C-alpha cells in the first residue's frame, strides 16, 4: 500500500473543463477576509455526516474547532488530521497571518464538501453556488481550497 499507487488510481479520472473560467482579482491581501473550503467532508459532531455521493456542504464554525472527518473513501491518510487539524483546515495558521498583518481577517464560517465525487453537476449548479453565496454574504474576499 503506497500513496503513489493510490494517486495513480485516480490520476486519469475524467475532470470537467471550463472553457471560459471566471477570474476574480482580489484587493490587497492585507485587507482581505479569508475562508477555507475543504473537500475533506469535515463536519461538527452534531451535523449529519456525508452520505455516499453527497454533494451538499456543511458550514463549519471557526469558533468550535471540533470538526470530525467523515468520508466514504478510505484512500487518504487520516492520522495527520487526527493529530493536527491545521494540516487540512489551517485556521490557526490563518489566525497567525492576521496577527502578522498578512491578511485582515479569518472568516467566522468555513465550508466542507465531500471529495471523491464523480457526478459534479449538483456541485456546479446547486451546492457550490449556495456555498459561495454564503461566503460572499459574510464578506469573504479570498478562499483557500484544500483537498484530502
Amino acid at each position, binding site marked *: 500500500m503506497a500513496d503513489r499507487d493510490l494517486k495513480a488510481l485516480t490520476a*486519469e479520472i475524467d475532470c470537467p473543463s471550463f472553457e471560459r*473560467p471566471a477570474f476574480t482579482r482580489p484587493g490587497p491581501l492585507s485587507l482581505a477576509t479569508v475562508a477555507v473550503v475543504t473537500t475533506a467532508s469535515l463536519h461538527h459532531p452534531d451535523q449529519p*455526516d456525508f452520505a455516499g455521493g453527497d454533494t451538499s456542504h456543511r458550514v463549519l464554525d471557526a469558533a468550535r474547532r471540533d470538526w470530525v472527518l467523515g468520508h466514504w473513501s478510505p484512500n487518504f491518510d487520516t*492520522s495527520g488530521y*487526527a493529530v493536527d487539524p491545521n494540516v487540512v483546515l489551517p485556521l490557526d495558521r490563518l489566525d497567525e497571518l492576521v496577527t502578522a498583518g498578512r491578511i485582515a481577517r479569518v472568516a467566522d464560517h468555513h465550508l466542507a464538501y465531500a471529495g471523491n465525487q464523480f457526478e459534479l453537476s449538483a456541485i456546479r449548479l446547486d451546492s457550490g453556488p449556495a456555498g459561495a453565496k454564503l461566503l460572499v454574504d459574510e464578506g469573504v474576499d479570498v478562499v*483557500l*481550497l484544500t483537498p484530502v
Partner: protein
Amino acid sequence: MSVLAHVFEAAGLATVALGSIHSQIQRTAPPRGLYCDFPLGRPLGRPGDAVFQHRVLAHALDLLERAEGPTVEVFPDAIADDAGAVLACALPARHDAALAPAVDEARGLRPAFDRAVARYGDRAGTGRAIAPDAVPDAVASFVAVGKGTPWKQAGIPGVPARVAQDIRGYYETAALALADHTPAAWEATRWFVQRTEAGAAIARARDAMAAAGEKQAIWFYLLPADS
C-alpha cells in the same frame, strides 16, 4: 476541488486551490493552483509543523497577486511516502482466549484509544457508524463474514464501509497513544492493515464478499484500494 474554485470565482471570490494529484490540478486548471506533492490527506504537508504549513500558505497566497490566470505552480518541497514503513507500536497481549483474536485485540486497545482521545480528541476515529464501545462486536461481525457468514447475516452494525472505517479509525487513534509520536502518512494505516488481527479480519471479509459475488460497492471501500 478545482470545480469549486471555478464556481466560487464566478461568484466574485478570489480562490487559490491546493492539489495533491498533479494531473488532476493540471487538467482542471483552477484560476490559481498550487500542486503540493504531499501524501493524500495532508494538503498542508506536515502535521504539527507550523513553519512548514506557513511556507505552503505563503506560496499559495502569493499566487493571488498574479494579474492573470489560470496558473498552477509546484511547491518546491515534496513529502515522499516510504511505502515500506509501518508504524512500530505494540499490540495488547492476548487476554481472553475465549474470544476471537481480533475481538480480544480490539478490547485490549480501548485504554490506548481513550488516552489518545484525551490528548487529541476523536477527530478521525469512531463515530461515522459506531461508538467506541461497539467496536469489538463490529470486529466480530467481520470475523464472521471472513469465515463464510453472508454479510447481511453477520450483524455488521451499519454500512460495511462506514463500520470498517470506524474500526480503522479506532485502531489508528489508539496507535497515536501507543507510538507517542505523529506517524508519517500511511504508517498507521499500514500497521492496521498489515499487523493487526482486525485489519486481517476485514481483509478476509472483503475477500469473502468479493468471492461471494457481492456488489463491488459493498466491499471495495472496506480498506484502502491497494491494500
